[in-house]
């Protein structure tokens, strides 16, 4: 089965092992140790980690299209935000009549902007299954339509990057409009509960953290499976020589579309897990700068490795958390400097650094090792 293929890879086993061990450790340290204990992990930290993990999933999605398909999407924030909004709309509906104005159906922002009734696109979001479906479908459909148009007309390279940027920018402006019915600049906030669990309780927060971790694990395995399949090799072929791949008889645009849509859906899931943990979704997630930042996480971690994306996302965001607290006036210097140095000095990112340290040994031990090639792994 192509889906189970990654479980036989050493790198995936290692990744999953570390991830699951980390999840378990955090959970134990949070639950078992008393609050005053020096090793206790506070719920604040758990939520923070949960946020990093959702970013990591987003980075994996971006790495799938950028690293393996060669499509530099500067608009993946849009899919992330759409997933987030789908979740946010569900959470808003869960508030029910506990809002400030006590309206049983309309969210607060609609009440004071005089909406008479729920707009049609809000219908159904009171049902969890529908909302969760939309978490996948909304970004998926957008990616499908956009990708269909773009890949069909063979928009490539920088042109594609720029129009993905235009896409997310246009969406940001649209969602800023209060007439759109998504809460305008304030976005959606003041969430109460998810599937009946109180979002403010520590247990729910821990649960969300674990759910995000598991989603990351599953997302990683899915991406790994795609990458290790023949389809993954077609993607790499497309990345490196698109015309050649076409002459081999592959309908390149369909492969691009398929991977792009999968990636968009993963980004949507990441967004949906992000929103309940940070407690707000607003149009700034659509901002082109955010999308560029995601790409930077991937570049920093190491492109076309998947685990590099995870490392990059967690590292940059951790640095952000630390620096904005420790050196609030100067953290942009640090962040900017980090980006410059890594791109110039570590073209393959941190993963490249790790691989560099590992490769010589492996080559010495087993030249042209069969197990190291994806082609063989599939045999």
């Amino acid at each position, binding site marked *: 089965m192509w889906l189970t293929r990654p479980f036989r890879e050493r790198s995936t086993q290692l990744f999953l092992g570390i991830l699951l061990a980390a999840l378990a450790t955090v959970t134990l340290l949070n639950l078992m140790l008393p609050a005053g204990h020096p090793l206790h992990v506070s719920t604040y930290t758990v939520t923070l980690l949960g946020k990093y993990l959702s970013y990591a999933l987003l980075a994996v999605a971006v790495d799938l299209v950028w690293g393996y398909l060669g499509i*530099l999407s500067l608009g993946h924030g849009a899919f992330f935000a759409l997933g987030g909004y789908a979740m946010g709309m569900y959470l808003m509906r869960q508030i029910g009549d506990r809002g400030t104005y006590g309206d049983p159906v309309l969210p607060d922002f609609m009440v004071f902007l005089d909406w008479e009734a729920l707009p049609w696109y809000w219908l159904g979001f009171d049902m969890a299954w529908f909302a969760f479906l939309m978490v996948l479908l909304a970004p998926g459909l957008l990616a499908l339509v*956009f990708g269909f*148009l*773009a890949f*069909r*007309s*063979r*928009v*490539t390279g*920088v*042109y594609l*990057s*720029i*129009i993905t*940027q*235009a*896409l997310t*920018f*246009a969406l940001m*402006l*649209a969602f*800023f*409009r209060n007439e759109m019915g998504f809460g305008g600049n304030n976005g959606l906030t003041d969430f109460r509960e998810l599937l009946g669990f109180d979002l403010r309780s520590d247990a729910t927060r821990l649960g969300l953290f674990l759910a995000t971790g598991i989603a990351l694990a599953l997302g990683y395995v899915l991406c790994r499976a795609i990458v290790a399949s023949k389809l993954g090799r077609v993607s790499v072929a497309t990345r490196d020589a698109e*015309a050649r791949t076409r002459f081999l008889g592959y309908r390149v645009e369909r492969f691009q579309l398929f991977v792009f849509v999968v990636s968009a859906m993963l980004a949507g899931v990441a967004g949906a897990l992000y929103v309940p943990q940070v407690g707000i979704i607003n149009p700034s997630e659509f901002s*082109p*700068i955010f999308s*560029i930042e995601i*790409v*930077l996480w991937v*570049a920093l971690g190491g492109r076309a490795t998947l685990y590099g994306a995870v490392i990059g996302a967690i590292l940059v965001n951790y640095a952000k958390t630390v620096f904005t607290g420790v050196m609030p*006036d*100067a953290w*942009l*210097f640090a*962040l*900017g*400097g*980090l*980006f*410059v140095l890594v*791109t*110039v000095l570590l*073209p393959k990112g941190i993963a490249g650094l790790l691989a560099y340290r590992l490769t010589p040994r492996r080559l010495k031990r087993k030249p042209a090792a069969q197990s190291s090639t994806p082609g063989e792994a599939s045999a």
Partner: protein
Amino acid sequence: MKIPPCLRRMLVLCLLACLPLAANAQDDDGQQLLESLDASSYAQMGVAIEAIITSGDERSRGWLEALLGGKLQRHKETGRFVVVLENRGRDWPVVDALTGEALGEMSRRDLDRLGINNALRGQLQGALAVLDLQADGVSERRQAARALLGDVDATLAEPLTVVIDAEEDAEVRRLLQQALAIHRLEEGDLAAVDALAGSLNSRVRSALNTASRSEDPGLAAAATSALADIEQKMKLNRGLETLYFGLSLGSVLVLAAIGLAITFGVMGVINMAHGELIMLGAYTTWAMQQLMPGQPGLAMVLSIPAGFLVAALAGIAIERGVIQFLKGRPLETLLATFGVSLILQQLVRTVISPLNRTVVTPEWMSGSIMINEGLSLTLNRLYVLGFALVVFAGLMLVMRRTRLGLEVRAVTQNRAMARSMGIRATRVDIMTFALGSGVAGLAGVALSQLTNVGPNLGQNYIIDSFMVVVFGGVGNLWGTLVAGLSLGVINQVLEPWAGAVLAKILVLVFIILFIQKRPRGLFPQKGRAAEG
């Protein structure tokens, strides 16, 4: 020719409603006039201003101007009236309002300002305009006459007829007659409608609008039909205006994008710090104005080379420090230069200030030129439009007619070949990047006249710039020009009916769809080489 002194004297006499002239007024009188200004209500102040106008005191103009500018103040303890020369900071240099004697600096704590409101401001401006009607320069008289439109009241009507008869300049006469007609219209004179018919001036239209709601059905009907005529004429005006708005916005886009068309289009460097180079140009303008206080115009002109230099030097630093290490990895230049842009922004925040800086608009760039009464083009934008075209033409010249341009084209088309022919590719890279960056600096100089000069300036233009370059076709300067101008016009045509936000969204969607249709922009590079 000027109004002869005897006539002027007569006019003033009329204007002053036959009050006794106080040619050699005593200081007590002046003190008294100013005392009466320091009243508790604006109504009383209005009376006092009237009194100053009619006093004929030769210092009255200075007082009125100081009052208008909020510079006429009173020392709290001594009650002395002073005129503040410069009112920034905590201590202000002042002169005595009565004697003109310099009194050194006074703390603002010790001074009380004689405050005015908009109603008084209108009264003062009207009064000053009347005085200006006797100015020597024709343009000043025209301006004064234009200011009087809608401000004529019964007391002014009579003397104005005298002035009109004496006035030599036809335009001033016409304006004054219109001003009089508006006054007569307000009094219900049906004939005045004819005198005003066809004028596109907004105050005339305002007066006609009022008249069209008048109780007198005849007057209302006449005014309404006159308005309908004017409306017809205004339609063409509005079309032209929208076109101008569009071209103006377009020129801003072109300016912002043209530097990028060089660094990105020609060199293939995705320079996310482009916006910050624009910002540097704008800050240079600010710095030049700080260096040359009181001469904003000269500073503005000098900032053109200075802004170019500063941005070009920054560009060279970026090229040497970052981009040269990323040859052949265009997408990674995006990442590294994004880091550079963060650093530059924060640098400006830390070194200069997180706050916006004031860039003064020089006299010759403010206001607008009037094409006709209903259509005037704002000067600053006109200059920017012209500047954009000049910069574009200059760039075309550099690329087409100079050795550098030739070398740049050679290196971008075949680097190895160019090198083997003795072109120093590294030097060409530096020069090209410096050129693109310098042009971004020029954009910054221009933008300082239109928008905020602050750390976020660059961020607001970077996305638009990329859209313009891509829409026009990467590597094609003409494409950038046409793309910028047409996007500007499309935006401004859409804006009135769609609103500002929706217009922008529609433009973006249009670009996305257009790229589907023509994946390499408006003017794609053709042939086999472009496929590489």
